[in-house]
């Protein structure tokens, strides 16, 4: 019997012009999203490649300059060490000329979601000073775009998918009831619960098919949009994303059937579902955002800037102390310090001062990072309030545009700084020339395995699945025939 109900229901759904229209719009929008996402990733990849090429060509230029300087010294029969200021000097190269521009690689599913990735440029110029890590390049993206947000797959699924589900299913039961077809149906040897089950199954088939088509369109584009798709397990991320989207859609379907069990007419069913939709997708997230802002605001950038300035000024004022401490830490360099030329004195003074500023700033930076982290943890608890927020948090993380992958990137930038310091600073202090530039450390970012992202989001994924199961279990519990029928007397 269920097979017949499902077939009949599918036939009716496929004949529904409004539904077909909306499905076509969703598919067209998916195509557009795929195209937009692809060009956005392509431009990111271009910026990344340009930065790398420019860095390598700068290194070649420095190597050529150094070779020229060496030749001149050899021809003039002058000593090769210590190097004079210029292309052979470690401070000149490491601190100024050969700063590496690091660009955060496009996320594995960056073509499908932008999350908060467009809020910052993800570009740093790394030399050998810790202050380089606090100076992220400004974001030139148009502010209105940032404020309104992008139309990406995450948005389509969060905002439009529930509407599609409501259009698809709001009249499934209430329509039969209001049109009095329920009386006719139950006059047949059909159980109301089976009818409900059949209708639910038909809707699940339609939704799964539609989501599959959407994911084939956008997934195939995402796969060749970024190289990180293959290196960071894009296929697995995409499959899980599909499964979570299905769970999200089934939650709305379950909810719609639940409302349909008692709504007298399709319009009252639509009205109630519309109210729940606006509450879950618009009002609760915006209220949660407001609450987070009011009670758990991010630490103040303004106060952080002033605290950093104060720390820097303090360190500058203790310039002499810093140098004394430097020689205390490096007694091997203290010998002959009075005979140093101006450049070398400057190098040591700057290094001593940079370390002093770094030490004074460290607690300020740590306080800020801890406050930011605490605020993120508190506000991530809001994800449990609405399936829309939970879904957004999960898909942003799966796509690689959430705070976790950015955190990894910042760690990689800090690691580059550390490796560069290990490479340049000893040579700079020992007055050794930098002759082999091929050994200059390069930026490396391995990204994150899909499994790690999955494990991190597993609680929210389970929560979304549980919501779908609960909604379905309530919606599909046995339906007494009397409740399926319209209690009002039929019009004559």
């Amino acid at each position, binding site marked *: 019997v269920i097979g017949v109900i499902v077939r009949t229901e599918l036939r009716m759904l496929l004949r529904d012009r409004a539904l077909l229209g909306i499905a076509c719009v969703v598919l067209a929008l998916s195509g557009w999203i795929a195209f937009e996402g692809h060009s956005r990733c392509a431009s990111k990849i271009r910026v990344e490649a340009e930065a790398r090429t420019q860095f390598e060509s700068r290194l070649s230029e420095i190597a050529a300059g150094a070779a020229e300087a060496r030749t001149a010294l050899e021809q003039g029969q002058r000593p090769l060490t210590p190097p004079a200021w210029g292309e052979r000097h470690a401070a000149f190269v490491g601190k100024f000329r050969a700063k590496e521009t690091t660009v955060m690689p496009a996320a594995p599913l960056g073509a499908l979601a932008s999350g908060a990735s467009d809020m910052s440029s993800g570009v740093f110029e790394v030399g050998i000073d810790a202050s380089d890590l606090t100076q992220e390049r400004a*974001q030139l993206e148009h502010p209105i775009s940032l404020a309104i947000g992008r139309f990406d797959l995450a948005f389509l699924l969060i905002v439009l998918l529930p509407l599609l589900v409501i259009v698809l299913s709001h009249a499934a039961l209430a329509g039969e009831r209001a049109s009095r077809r329920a009386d006719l149906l139950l006059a047949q040897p059909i159980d109301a619960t089976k009818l409900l089950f059949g209708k639910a199954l038909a809707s699940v088939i339609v939704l799964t098919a539609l989501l599959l088509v959407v994911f084939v369109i956008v997934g195939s584009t995402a796969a060749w949009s970024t190289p990180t798709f293959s290196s960071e397990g894009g296929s697995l991320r995409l499959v899980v994303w599909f499964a979570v989207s299905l769970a999200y859609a089934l939650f709305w379907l379950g909810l719609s059937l639940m409302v349909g069990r008692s709504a007298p007419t399709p319009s009252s069913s639509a009205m109630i579902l519309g109210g729940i939709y606006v509450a879950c997708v618009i009002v609760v997230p915006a209220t949660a955002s407001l609450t987070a802002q009011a009670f758990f605001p991010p630490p103040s950038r303004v106060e952080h800037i002033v605290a950093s300035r104060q720390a820097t000024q303090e360190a500058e004022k203790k310039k002499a102390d810093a140098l004394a401490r430097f020689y205390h830490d490096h007694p091997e360099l203290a010998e002959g310090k009075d005979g140093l030329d101006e450049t070398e004195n400057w190098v040591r003074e700057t290094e001593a001062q940079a370390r002093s500023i770094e030490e004074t700033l460290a607690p300020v930076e740590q306080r800020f990072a801890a406050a930011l982290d605490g605020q993120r943890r508190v506000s991530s608890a809001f994800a449990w309030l609405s399936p829309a*927020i939970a879904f957004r948090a999960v898909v942003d993380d799966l796509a690689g545009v959430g705070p976790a992958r950015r955190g990894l990137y910042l760690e990689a930038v800090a690691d580059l700084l550390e490796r560069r310091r290990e490479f340049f600073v000893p040579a700079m202090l020992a007055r050794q020339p930098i002759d082999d530039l091929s050994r200059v450390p390069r930026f490396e970012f391995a990204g994150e395995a899909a499994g790690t992202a999955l494990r991190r989001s597993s609680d929210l994924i389970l929560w979304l699945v549980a919501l779908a199961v609960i909604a379905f279990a309530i919606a599909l519990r046995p339906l007494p025939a009397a409740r399926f029928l319209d209690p009002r007397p039929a019009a004559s």
Partner: protein
Amino acid sequence: VIGRIARNEVIRIVRDGRLRCAAAVLVVLLALSAWVGREHQQTLARERAAATEQERTLFVGQGDKNPHSAAHYGTYAFRTVPALAMFDPGLLSVLGTAQYLEAHRRNFLVGAVAADSPVLQRFGELSAGYVLAVLVPLLIFLLAYGAFAEERENGTLALVLAQGVVPWKLIVGKAIALLAVLGAIAGPAFVMLAIGVVVEDWRGLGRLGLLAGLYVSFFAVLAAFALAISASARSARSALATLLVGWVVLFVVGPRIAVMVADRLRPAPDLGTFETNLRAERSAMRVPGGEWERREKAAEQELLASRGAKGFEELPVNPAGFAMDLDEVLARELYGKHFAALFATQRSHERMLAMAAALFPVLAVRSLSAAICGTDLESHRHFHESADAYRFDVVRAMNMAMFENRDPSFEVGASFYESVPRFEYRGLPLASVLTPRWPEFVVLGVLMLLGVLVTRRCALRLTGELA
């Protein structure tokens, strides 16, 4: 008659439990957003005023140094938060908060609050402006969908018309009822904000009045269209479906699509390209016989002529200060040119969105609302330019102090730093903010005209129905 119709319509709305519930939710949201908005604005204003004072203390206490080194040490200008940001924070959270003012460079503002905010921020900021521009229209649609359609289904519409009620009076009465209900919902929040604004800066009241006018006309237009749809729909159900789909398209999906299309048509340059172009042009100026050299010679001759000397060696000056000053002048011109191009891109983007507002009017309302509150992009650019003009004056004063002292070891100290005026930012006057926003006003004007036409057509339809 109109008064009686309006009263009946209000009773219909108030009796409907679902509408009462939706209205109550909005009252709470508006009150909450107004209260949080006020707290937030005051916190930000306090924090930035304190930061400005601390920064001044740091600047004055930076110690004795070469004037040009002091110019490199520079200072920070913190973006002021206008009082009306409590109503509509506009773009404040995505724009930077602090501009570093130093020698040779014109920096962007850094430290956007949104960059530190969590995932939630992407769902939108629930300000009073957002509630009025995005959520209240949904309420209008919910209140209006049944105004005619339900009465037609019940048969009361025919009765009312048969009693000789003129259709346009019926429409006007219902529209007045809708606006009265909205007034009751939004009124308390506006009063709360008015008190907040008076406490901060009473001059903001005029702007608040303008905001009230903007939203009332927007709501009137929406009410006219919603009533027209209710009057022409076959059933209350189809009126509701049309209005709900319309809301999602016009208020949620449409603006995002418009922004992406505008982005595609006029993409903003990335910072890498912006800086590379700037550096390249700066290097080109410095080639032997180039712009820099030419300008240097001209400026040198002009200065020497004004002081009646043949060379710098005849004067008690430090030529290095002259070179620094000239570099500052040229750098400012260069940065000015590149920033002007960037701002032109931004402005053309804004113009495209103003045109898109003809399709998605919420874009016009949000843009005008932010402009009136001083939280739009134009106000931000004005702050940035004012801060840079201040930077230029301060750096030049320092370079001149260096130039006027022949001794290369000359240093300035606290008394000199204290003589440097503070950066006092005066916001953009309202007229200057609103003048470039004329396309949005045109869009709203056209919509109001269309609203009148639609109402007229609706009245004719109702007359036809009676016949």
